[in-house]
């Protein structure tokens, strides 16, 4: 670590605004993203309340359009993507043995662009015609000036562009850290699995996310009189640009949690992660394939090569399967310790399976034609994003909380959180598969009793409130653990990677003592004398 000691640290409010320490920026990103998660969650509960029974109970149709637009936008642009990046911002430098993230100022700019972007997008509710109401995809021409007039849509576009720019900058800093700031001995094939997941995540962010900036920039110009998407081909051009971002982002919201969950499973199985090199290769193939599937969102337009996009979408099952093999292979023969992070990690793989398997279904054009724009699709992507990503996120949160704060979260409350989250998730989203298959379209504020969708919708609404309850239990856990802190020590779980070789929380330059020798992706296991796979008979 060839760095000079920094000047006196910025503390308090000043530190929270201008501090460049990657750990502090990551914590701010995490807290900001969770703030938006709560806001997006409240919006979701209002929507579910509206849909529980036929008729308009809580809001108007236009109001409902704004609610689902802001719910989707918030969860994707302002919560899951940033929170995934926040994990990388905190742990990538630690895992590769660096004293600081590369480009700390750029990283700070990235955070503030994200925060300002989020506030601007939400401020669109204050506009005369209300917030954006063209869905999180802002499909053209639904989002153009004649169809969505008013400044609310403009503010939303500006906010999305800022937040996305911020995420790109943060990803670039992480990538640069991995490229150029690794500790001596930390070759790319000794980089921990979580950091590898951030490599592919950041590669996708820097190569696919600029497409969204182009799409949104074009939309903004179009709304102000410049014919960027003229004629019938304009809608298709917009969709290409949007979905070239819109599908990779799904994996940006997935890979970091795969990496985190695999590390959790390895740690709580007391053994090395199974098939390290296979995981690395499958992550690279997975990420490349996920850049080649955007057209499956456009099957029903008749304007894309359905055969190609169906083929690549189905091929995703192969690298995904390899991640599952790695998880199962690590579990088999391990000395399993079923603490909260481990249970969340296992639940992540199980819950995501439903999203992944239904993905094969919608990856087939004839079947996709049948369920397109129905609640089946809503169920599918919520199983990948909420049931998938957020379970992995909580596995990471419970796992790394002691490292970040220096104290444990309560295990009992954590297990209650998990139980409620599992129940809530499945009660909410499983009925949506049946609703969609029965023809309930997405993005509708109302339906009639004759549709016979009431029972399943009531069930789904009850489930949504159970999810809300589970999040309340998590907040209670944080509060209780904060008020009655149980010190964690530097390595409470018997961790395997370098972040566990420093104090909890880590010092300003991450490591005070010399780093242990790095001979594998699990240097702390080497230190304890656990044999490397190649040394096994």
């Amino acid at each position, binding site marked *: 670590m*060839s*760095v*000079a000691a*920094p000047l*006196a*640290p*910025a503390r308090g409010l000043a*530190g929270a*605004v*201008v*501090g*460049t*320490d990657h750990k502090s920026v990551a914590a701010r990103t995490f807290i900001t993203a969770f703030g938006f998660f709560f806001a997006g969650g409240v919006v979701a509960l209002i929507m579910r309340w509206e849909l529980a029974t036929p008729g308009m109970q809580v809001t108007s149709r236009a109001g409902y359009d704004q609610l689902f637009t802001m719910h989707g936008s918030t969860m994707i642009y302002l919560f899951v993507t940033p929170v995934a990046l926040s994990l990388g911002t905190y742990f990538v430098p630690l895992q590769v043995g660096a004293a600081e993230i590369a480009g*700390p*100022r*750029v990283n*700070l*700019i990235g955070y*503030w*662009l994200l925060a*300002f*972007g989020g506030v*601007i997008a939400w401020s*669109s509710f204050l*506009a005369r015609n209300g917030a954006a109401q063209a869905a999180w995809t802002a499909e053209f021409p639904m989002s153009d000036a004649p169809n969505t007039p008013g*400044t609310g849509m*403009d*503010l939303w*576009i500006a*906010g999305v562009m*800022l937040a996305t*720019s911020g995420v790109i900058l943060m990803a670039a800093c992480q*990538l*640069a850290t991995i*490229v*150029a*700031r*690794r500790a001596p001995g930390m070759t*790319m094939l000794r980089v921990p699995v979580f950091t590898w997941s951030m*490599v*592919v995540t950041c*590669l996708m962010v*820097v*190569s696919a996310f*600029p*497409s969204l900036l182009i799409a949104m920039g074009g939309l903004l110009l179009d709304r*102000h009189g410049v014919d960027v998407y003229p004629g019938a081909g304009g809608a*298709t*051009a917009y969709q*290409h640009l949007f979905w*070239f971002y819109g599908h990779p982002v799904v994996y940006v919201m997935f890979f970091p949690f795969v990496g985190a969950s695999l590390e959790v499973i390895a740690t709580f199985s007391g053994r090395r992660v199974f098939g390290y090199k296979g995981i690395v290769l499958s992550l*690279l193939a997975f990420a*490349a*394939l996920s*850049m*080649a599937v955007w057209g499956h969102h456009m099957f029903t337009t008749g*304007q*894309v*090569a359905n055969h*190609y996009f169906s083929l690549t979408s189905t091929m995703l099952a192969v690298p995904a399967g390899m991640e599952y093999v790695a998880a199962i292979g690590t579990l088999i023969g391990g000395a399993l310790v079923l603490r909260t992070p481990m249970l969340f990690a296992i639940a992540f793989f199980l819950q995501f399976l439903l999203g992944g398997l239904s993905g094969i279904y919608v990856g087939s054009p004839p079947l996709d034609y049948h369920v397109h724009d129905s609640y089946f699709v809503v169920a599918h992507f919520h199983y990948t994003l909420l049931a998938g990503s957020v379970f992995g996120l909580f596995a990471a949160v419970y796992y790394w909380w002691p490292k970040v704060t220096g104290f444990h979260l309560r295990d009992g409350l954590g297990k209650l959180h998990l139980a409620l989250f599992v129940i809530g998730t499945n009660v909410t989203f499983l009925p949506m598969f049946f609703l969609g298959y029965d023809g309930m379209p997405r993005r509708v504020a109302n339906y009639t009793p004759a549709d016979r969708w009431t029972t399943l919708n009531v069930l789904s609404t009850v489930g949504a409130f159970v999810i809300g309850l589970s999040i309340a239990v998590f907040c209670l856990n944080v509060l209780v653990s904060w008020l009655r802190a149980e010190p964690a020590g530097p390595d409470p779980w018997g961790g395997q990677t370098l972040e566990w070789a420093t104090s909890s929380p880590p010092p300003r330059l991450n490591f005070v003592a010399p780093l242990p020798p790095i001979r594998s992706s699990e240097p702390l296991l080497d230190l304890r004398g656990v044999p490397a796979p190649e040394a096994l008979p």
Partner: protein
Amino acid sequence: MRGRDAALWIGLWTVFNIVLSTLLFVFTTDLMTHVVYWLAIVWLLPLILIALLARDPGRRALPQASGGSVVLALAVAFLALGAGLGLWAALCGAALGVVGVVLLVTERSA
């Protein structure tokens, strides 16, 4: 040397992408589909070059705080707000941008 190691892997990922995007030529001649895909791949080439040229980190001073970065981010936010709120916001953004750049230059030379 570390950069070269990483460049190899980014290169492998780029090759995966090139194979998949080349395969697309078998299925469609739609220009937009190809342009979007290939732009992203071309974008990766400078990334590989930067990784190849990355040197091992030398001894350097770390910034503890950066007011200039925050002002610059605020400037960009105001510039973007100009789209919704009008020219005044964009002009505020431009002015803040100048202040931000001056602050950043001052910070780096301090």
